[in-house]
């Protein structure tokens, strides 16, 4: 996991996978509703997030996340846990 979490990096990662401009990836948007992500896109996104942030992100977990800020909070929480450890 990177030393410091930068939201810009998550924007760029998701934008690359979903084929949208990074600016469209904002805290209050939904991958499915706003960025037209289908189930295949989400599987690809999970793999990319797991690789970049060295976390495990079960599909059920991502499905519970309504907007991108939910994912961001999940990553911040994992990051904090790692710093404490």
């Amino acid at each position: 996991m990177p030393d410091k979490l930068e939201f810009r990096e998550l924007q760029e990662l998701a934008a690359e996978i979903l084929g949208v401009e990074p600016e469209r990836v904002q805290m209050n948007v939904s991958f499915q509703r706003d960025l037209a992500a289908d189930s295949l896109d989400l599987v690809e996104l999970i793999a990319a997030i797991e690789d970049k942030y060295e976390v495990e992100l079960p599909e059920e977990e991502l499905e519970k996340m309504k907007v991108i800020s939910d994912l961001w909070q999940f990553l911040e929480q994992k990051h904090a846990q790692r710093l404490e450890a």
Partner: protein
Amino acid sequence: MNPNNGRRVAVTGLGFVTPIGNDLETVWSNLVEGVSGVGPITYFDTATYSCKIAAQVKGFDPELYMDRKTARHIGRYCQFALAASRQALDQAGLDPAQLDPDDVGVIVSSGIGGMEEIEKSHTALMQRGVRRISPFTVPMMIADMGAGIVAMHTKAGGPNFAIASACASSGHALGEAAEIIKRGDARAMLAGGAEATITPLTMGAFCQIKAVSERNDEPEKACRPFDVDRDGFVMGEGSVMFVLEDLEFARRRGARVLAELAGYGASADMHHFTAPHPEGAGAIRAMRKALTRAGVQPEEVGYINAHGTSTKLGDVAETKAIKEVFGEHAHQLAVSSTKSVHAHLLGAAGAMEAAACVLAIQRGMLPPTINLDRQDPDCDLDYVPNHARPAEVGVAISNSFGFGGHNATVVIRKPEAN
């Protein structure tokens, strides 16, 4: 009963993504100038490969034809097919979205499908485990997806599938698409083939069967059909797509008819996995059926675009077959293998070469067989050696033969004045 149901099939559009250009005029210019598309393989390290050359597509930007997300999520061969289809529809002035969904169908044939994508996902599996297999692996690898993608993006909702017959795939695609129009199941068809197999596994596998040229130090001279020094085919890639239409439909809507797809014949060699029948027995029957269906006498044929892959056995067998079908006239008509220039597009080869027939008829110019320096005595026809030649041609045929012993011949005829 007239098997054509009184219908004739017009060619009204062509689209190209090929090693010798990604638009019609560039492709034609390189065909007639004999500018080879073959060079060193740059996609992967070929240090341990006996063949290090291929004809790669150059300067292709998928985002000229589709959005970025689509480009990311479809196989390379599907990108080629969608690009070529859009060009063909543009030339035909046909927009399937403006018609009934059943009016326009699509056949995109591929010999293999998304090979690069299969290989990448297999590598991910071996190195990083099952959860790193791309979820797009299946849609990227299956050989029917070209037809599916083209329909989704052009709104052509008629008959939709792929035909797999190796290097004859798009010869069959054109012929079967014409039959669909003749039997009334569509007014128009987007038909052709797409292939993208310049990959580590495919190239290695072809090296192992000694099917590909090893003339690595002179790539542009490697594909030399009918020459004594030929040593195998050269892998190419790309897509060529046709718009075929019911001739009456094309005339009613004021489309420019480039040529008529007048006949089609298909057969099997019944002989061997990879070797052609030594006397071209299957090829003879395919050519004869195609001429019969077109109502064309052998003496009317002025040009044959040969399958001519530059293999030792294939070029001789095809020459024998042509002599059997055409008799004395075999020595009057012109034969060329444009594979010498664009190399072997496998599942797109038949469409590429039928397109060369359309353009040769339309423009009154026969594209040459390049690298024909010393003609094989067993290949004793007029192969239009090394230089294009002006000629008025009324009827041309394109031969396509595939591993498995599949043969397809299509007959292309000059259109009557509108």
